Every structure is written in structure tokens, then in C-alpha cells.
């Protein structure tokens, strides 16, 4: 059992209430930060802890904060990305529902470090429960002066606004999130200017994931050194992994970075359900698939990247050998087609085309040339889109072609899945 950092307090009864949270050393981290550190020292402290953003890219958090101009002459903002919509990901929901105050404490620490007086929590529209809990938590925290004006007697003030999105996947992309928050269409924006310089309402903005911010209180309480002792050389600390798919015990598991996939699936998840392991998607729907050969790959940013996939949002999806990979690809791509924002051409038209081809193949009308067509369409999307959504839509197909080409071939030549055996070719 590895050390718990984020979910340590999760099992305590009533932890979503402020009294219980404070009893369990809640807001200690904030107090420490306000009393013992100047904002600059705090940023250095977080840098020293080696904390990296948990949103997907794994960018060092302290470094991100240090990019924000000190005195821009404009307000600065924090946006908490709680628009958790990557298929397979469910960690933010638990953190918001069970540990809302831990998130608020993290927000306060971050805002103090960067000098922000206004924070927004952009919560996914579907998470109504989480929204209500957060609203209540903010109210409680303001009453106890953990938020609001002159927090704990200092001259640091912070206002937190919880904003519900409308359930668009693209709004998890940071610049689209900002657009949506401003009341515009959820279209990603041009970078540069980066949000740290010109973000929300053209002001410097920090955008952090819920998990990143929820880690901060523990780091403050227990020390940066303690945190950096966890995990691997370059990926410090722990991470909440969302295990789903064909496993016996799906759920959120907090593991030290560096734990292997085998550990997660077999020890935590209780093994693969209903058959042998066929493929693993290690970082949410936008990550390329891996196979059972990669079971011993560690679940940290570098190791997964080295294996040809990405750690992404930490959603590990397990696929057993009774599953048709082509249908899986279709399912995933239907998601991306549905969620494409329509701004740029390759993603808007390409995802639709991929879905059309896969639908036709799955329905028995594949042609041999469809294999090359699929590859070509994926290649044409890849790298040509405005934001990474288009690339994500191709990753499952490209990795499936790498590891399971025969499944596509079978559909193309026999009009059915390889699992169904060879059928007579549908004639028309």
C-alpha cells in the first residue's frame, strides 16, 4: 500500500463539512503558507516539491506559476479546471464531492503564491452534486475566513466563484475553458499569447487541474521534501488513477508515481474481468493503446511516453480479448466526433469521416482500400489541427493499427470482426 497524499482524508465521515476537515488538520497548510512564506518563497517551495500538473501534460506547477507577471497592472485570475470529461476519468468528481475543502485550501495556497484575488472553479455541467457541494463549501470557508476578505487576518483576500460549464469536452482545453468562462463559444484560442500572460478577460491567468491543487495542502503540511521523496526521479509524488474497463474492481486508486500497470490492474483492480488482457489505454481516451507486453511499464509521465503512449488524465482503461478493437475505435471516435468543436477543418471533417468509415466497416461494408484510407485520414488530421483534440481522435486508431492490424484487415476483407470468424462477404 503506497502513501496516500490526496485521498488520505477521504474515508473520514463528514469530511466534506468544514468542521470535520479542520479537525483533521484541514487548512493547516494554508495557515502555514500565509504565516511562514512570502509568495515568492511559496513558489520556490512548490518548485522544490517537484509537483507536476495533473491535467495531462505534466507541466511543473511551480514553474507555471512563476510565468505569471508580478505586477501587470491588471487583475490576475486562477481558473480551476474541473471540466473532467475525458472518457474513463472520474478522479476530479471524487475529489470535489468528498474533499471540497482540500481543493479550496489548495486554491487559496495557489492564489496566495501567485497574488491572485479572484479564482474561478470551472466545473463540468453534469457534476451537479459536486457543484452544490462546492458552493456550500465556499460558503462555509468564507464564514470561517479561510476565503473572502483578509483571510486569517492577513491582507490577502480571495473570492472564489464556482461556474458550471455546459458539458463540452473541448472546454477542458485551457483556452477553450477561458472562452467558455467569458461567455463566448467554447472555441480554443490562439497561443501565444499564453494564458499566463493574457488569459481570462485578457489578464494573466493560472489554470490548474483539481488534482494538482488538491495535492498542495498535503505538501504544505508535510513538507516539500517529503513529497519529493515519493515517486520516481522525474515524476514526484502520487497520482490518482481511474481504473475502468474489464477489471474486477474498477475505481480510483492513488498510487505513487512509478507503480507499474501490472500492479494497478492485478493488485488494485483485482485482475482482468471476463478474459485475457488485450489492450490498455493508459491515459484516457485520447491516449494511444498499449498491449499486455507493456504491463510492466511504470505509470509515470516518462515511462508511458517512452512506451509510445501518454499518461494523460490518469484514466486507465482495460480491454479484454473478447473485445473487438475496431468497434472500440469506433466507440472512441464517436466520442471525439461528437465533441469536436468545429473550429478547425481537419478535426471537424476528419473525425466525422473516421466515424463514417469505421461505421461502414463495422457494419460489414469495409473495403480493402479502407485500411489505407483510414491511415491516410489519420495522418491528415494528425498535427494539422488547431488544438490537440484532433490528434487525440487519431491516437486510438493509429495505435490499434500498430498492435492489431489484423482486426482491421479482417473487417476490410470479410465484412465482420475477427472474433466472429470468417463470414461470407456481404454482396450487394
Amino acid at each position, binding site marked *: 500500500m503506497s502513501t496516500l497524499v490526496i485521498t488520505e482524508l477521504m474515508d473520514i465521515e463528514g469530511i466534506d463539512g468544514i468542521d470535520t476537515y479542520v479537525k483533521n488538520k484541514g487548512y493547516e497548510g494554508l495557515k502555514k503558507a500565509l504565516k511562514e512564506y512570502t509568495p515568492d518563497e511559496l513558489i520556490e517551495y512548490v518548485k522544490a516539491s517537484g509537483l507536476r500538473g495533473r491535467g495531462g501534460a505534466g507541466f511543473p506547477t511551480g514553474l507555471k506559476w512563476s510565468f505569471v507577471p508580478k505586477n501587470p497592472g491588471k487583475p490576475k485570475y486562477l481558473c480551476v479546471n474541473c471540466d473532467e470529461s475525458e472518457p474513463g476519468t472520474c478522479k476530479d468528481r471524487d475529489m470535489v464531492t468528498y474533499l471540497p475543502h482540500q481543493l479550496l485550501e489548495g486554491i487559496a495556497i495557489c492564489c496566495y503564491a501567485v497574488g491572485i484575488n479572484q479564482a474561478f472553479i470551472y466545473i463540468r455541467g453534469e457534476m451537479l452534486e459536486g457543484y452544490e457541494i462546492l458552493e456550500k463549501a465556499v460558503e462555509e470557508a468564507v464564514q470561517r475566513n479561510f476565503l473572502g476578505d483578509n483571510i486569517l487576518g492577513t491582507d490577502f483576500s480571495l473570492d472564489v466563484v464556482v461556474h458550471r460549464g455546459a458539458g463540452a469536452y473541448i472546454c477542458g482545453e485551457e483556452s477553450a475553458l477561458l472562452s467558455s468562462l467569458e461567455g463566448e463559444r467554447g472555441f480554443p484560442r490562439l497561443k501565444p499569447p499564453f494564458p499566463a500572460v493574457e488569459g481570462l478577460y485578457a489578464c494573466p491567468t493560472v489554470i490548474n487541474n483539481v488534482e494538482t491543487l488538491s495535492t498542495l495542502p498535503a505538501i504544505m503540511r508535510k513538507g516539500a521534501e517529503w513529497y519529493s521523496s515519493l515517486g520516481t526521479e522525474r515524476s514526484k509524488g502520487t497520482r490518482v488513477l481511474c481504473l475502468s474497463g474489464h477489471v474486477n474492481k474498477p475505481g480510483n486508486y492513488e498510487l505513487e508515481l512509478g507503480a507499474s500497470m501490472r500492479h494497478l490492474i492485478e493488485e488494485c483492480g483485482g485482475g482482468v474481468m471476463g478474459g485475457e488482457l488485450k489492450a490498455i489505454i493508459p491515459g484516457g481516451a485520447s491516449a494511444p493503446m498499449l498491449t499486455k507486453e507493456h504491463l510492466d511499464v511504470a505509470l509515470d509521465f516518462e515511462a508511458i511516453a517512452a512506451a509510445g503512449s501518454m499518461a494523460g488524465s490518469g484514466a486507465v482503461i482495460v480491454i479484454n480479448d473478447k473485445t473487438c478493437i475496431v468497434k472500440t475505435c469506433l466507440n472512441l471516435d*464517436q466520442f471525439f466526433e*461528437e465533441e469536436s468543436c468545429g473550429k478547425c477543418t481537419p478535426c471537424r471533417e476528419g473525425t466525422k469521416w473516421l466515424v*463514417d468509415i469505421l*461505421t*461502414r466497416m*463495422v*457494419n*460489414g*461494408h469495409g*473495403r*480493402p*482500400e479502407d485500411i489505407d484510407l483510414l491511415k491516410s485520414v489519420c495522418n491528415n488530421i494528425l498535427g494539422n489541427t488547431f488544438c490537440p483534440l484532433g490528434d487525440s481522435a487519431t491516437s486510438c486508431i493509429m495505435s490499434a493499427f500498430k498492435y492489431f492490424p489484423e482486426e482491421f484487415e479482417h473487417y476490410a476483407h470479410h*465484412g465482420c470482426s475477427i472474433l466472429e470468424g470468417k463470414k461470407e462477404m*456481404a454482396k*450487394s
Partner: protein
Amino acid sequence: MDRVIDDLIALGKGLSITFKNYLEKPVTKQYPEEKRDIPKRARGRHVLHRYNDGLERCVGCLLCQGTCPAGAIYIEAEENDKENPVSKGERHAKVFDVDLLRCIYCGHCEMACPTNAITLENNTALAGFTRESLLMHKEDLLEPEGSSTLGTTEYWDPKPPEDLSHRVPAQTGEFDGSSTSAAAVGRGDLDLNKAPKKPTRKEGDNA
């Protein structure tokens, strides 16, 4: 001596052609009582074609007018009345005039036509007493109501290849009611085993 023999052979050859033709029927036709067969691809007067349902093929795109090297075609297009369409599509030719005195019968118009609406047919007997009689209006050029031909198009327009490796319903346009062919004709969401993934949009929802 050799030379005499060569001359005689040459003479014989020449005379043989003369006698051969002497014995054949004359090629002269007693026009106009007799009419000669015209090659299938000969280019005579223009004809505007119709679809089987009687709608005009011409959509008034003005490509023939644009390509005409002699400036013999004049067209005015108009929007189709949705209730009583003249052609398929959004527009049709309100005015379609061909000046046969200007036309040089090059056939560019039939090549340019995207709907195979205009062809040059085998009517080559074109004469008139006035200039006006040789200015053809749309009424003169159109096939009579009820007839629907492609004209000479079939003799020069190459057909699409038939040897496609795997003819899919999208190409044959067939829908046999199965979910597979439904997908191929663009209605993959009609799978009967599952509930529809999302409500299908109706055309003109926001119209």
C-alpha cells in the same frame, strides 16, 4: 523489255481500279429525296434534354455560354419555383437562345455541360428564310414533353468504369433494409439492435 512489262503491270493495276468502280453502284445520293446516313457523332442542331420525369436537365449554369467560342448562346437563369420546378436543383434557364448563324458546331457546349443537358444532334439540314428563324429559343430546342433521351452523349462521353473492386451500397445506392447497408448509405445509426445514439437531425430543423 523489263520496262515494258513494268508499264503493263502498272497499267493493269490502274485499269483494275477503274473497272472495279465502273461496276459498283454510284455513291451520289439524290438529296433531298434520298438522305444519306450521318455518322453518329456528327454535330448538327442543338437539343435540350429532359429527365425521365419531364424536368429539364438544363440548370442554367451558363458554362456552355462561357465556353462558346462564337458567342452563339445566350442564357438567363432564374430560381426554381419549389412547388413547380422546371429543372432539378435550385435554378433553371429562363431564356436559352442559340444563334445558329453564329454557331460553329464545335461541340464545346455539350462537353462543358455538367448535366448532359445540351447535345448537338444529327439534324444538319439547317436553313431558313430569315435571320429570326435561325435564332433558336428554348421552346425550339427542348425535347418534346414526354421524351427523355441523352442524345449523342453516349457516343462520346465515356462511361464510369464498372470494374470497381468492391461495390458498396454507397456506390450502388442500394439499401436492402439491413443495418450494414444502412451504414453504407450513410444511415449507420439505424442499427435496430440499439437505441439511436443521439436524436437524428431532421433536414431543415432550423430553417
